[in-house]
């Protein structure tokens, strides 16, 4: 699946959260969405997931508008993970995966839960309440939920935020391996520049609702004359807006 974002704008009352952004995310590629806090990343993802109605512009997924009549068909092939969105705490990990497996209409759900639990090392706490898990465990459960339907498009909002380096590395490595074995398009919003360099094919830099630069990580670093993506990010974040 590919995603085409065309002249997407979102205005909340007088606040322009996303200002006329356009980009294409090619099938089986990973796009990094970068920018300082409040630059419009989450709002953009919300519009791509059909959770927020754009003020103008559109999101096309495989040339279908995400808010169209076949929204459920599109959503059944997409998923989303974010540390800021949780699963019901009073349900066990297995129960949560079962609930979401059913919502996504997964056939042979028992095997799918077993498969994903093994892949993400969830077996030791499958019958534990989700609310009792550590941040690292919760994060892996959230990732398991986001992959339960084997999505064609995966939205990841800061997937390793607040994780220790070991678990963070495990998650990044898992995403890399999963991507190499499956046909999947990923949009990754992150503040971890090393993560972005490792996982993303191309990067979009946002600031104050606009796209201010785009390209591969190497292109951006070269273009801005910096040594790495982190310094490049800082330069862009602290400079005046320049439209790409």
């Amino acid at each position, binding site marked *: 699946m590919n995603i085409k974002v065309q002249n997407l704008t979102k205005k909340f009352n007088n606040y322009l959260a996303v200002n006329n952004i356009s980009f294409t995310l090619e099938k089986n590629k990973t796009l990094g969405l970068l920018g300082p806090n409040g630059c419009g990343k989450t709002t953009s993802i919300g519009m791509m*997931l059909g959770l927020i109605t754009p003020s103008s512009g559109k999101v096309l997924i495989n040339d279908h508008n995400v808010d169209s009549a076949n929204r459920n068909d599109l959503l059944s092939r997409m998923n989303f993970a974010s540390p800021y969105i*949780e699963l*019901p705490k009073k349900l066990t990990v297995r129960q949560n995966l079962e609930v979401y497996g059913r919502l*996504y209409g997964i056939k042979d759900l028992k095997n799918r839960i077993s498969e994903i639990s093994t892949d993400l090392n969830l077996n030791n706490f499958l019958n534990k309440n989700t609310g009792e898990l550590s941040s690292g465990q919760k994060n892996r459960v959230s990732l398991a*939920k986001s992959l339960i339907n084997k999505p064609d498009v995966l939205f990841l909002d800061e997937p390793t935020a607040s994780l220790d380096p070991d678990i963070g590395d495990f998650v990044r490595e898992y995403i890399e391996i999963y991507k190499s074995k499956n046909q999947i398009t990923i949009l990754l919003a992150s503040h971890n520049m090393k993560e972005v360099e490792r996982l993303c094919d191309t990067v979009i830099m946002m600031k104050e609702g606009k796209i201010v630069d785009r390209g591969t990580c190497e292109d951006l670093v070269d273009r801005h004359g910096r040594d790495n993506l982190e310094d490049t990010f800082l330069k862009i974040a602290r400079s005046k807006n320049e439209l790409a």
Partner: protein
Amino acid sequence: MNWHKIYGLSLRHIYLIRNSFPRILDLIYWPSVQVFLWGFISEFFTVSSSYYNNTVGVILTAAILYDFLFRSSISYNMMFLEEIWSRNFSNLFIAPIKISEIIAALTMTAIFRTLIGLVPAVLVAIPLFGVSIFKLGIPLIFLLIALYIFGISLGLLVTSGLLRFGPSFENIAWASLFFLAPLGCIYYPIEILPNILQIIAKGLPLVHIFEEMRNILINQTVNIAQIIKSILISIIYFAVGVMVFYISYYGAKKKGTLINIGE
């Protein structure tokens, strides 16, 4: 004692109240509702204390039926609030589910939650007070249907508020039923209400349901037209509830609350 700190802490709560209209409304109407409800009950017993003389258990039956309504509505709201409290809201709305499926799931699950709470109370009332709601006979089924439809309609309306305005609407969720109680004529006949309120009350199915309950228990007769009327009015409220839910859903998408509700 550091008054600056006390003032600072007070401000934290004052700001919370000032920033939320539902919270202000909640503070105002609870005492008012209590005064109305118990005022009417007191007036009724002062004027016609002989009304219930020969009918043991009318009040308790009314209380049980009212609780059925209360539980069905609160169950509906609770399930939605659970999603907000657990910050699971966005996960739910990006899953391939239709709004009609969400409404249907909540409606079906609410009946289980309601019955879990109600059945023990109904059974306890029989040996403890000698009161059985089953004395209402077959009409009980239809009265419960009317109550349930109205209960989930209120649940839908409150849920719509939660969807649109977020967790600050939570207080309304808890209080929605008490708000209607004085007008519902649950414990007293409609004649107790002032004329103007009688007109409004007749637009609620509760009046017809509880009038019919008293009619069956006191006069030992069944007014089928009244039962049908109560079900039809409940269905109208349900249709309005569904419509408002859809409007709220699209409003929430426009406002962006689906992605950050609960935060």
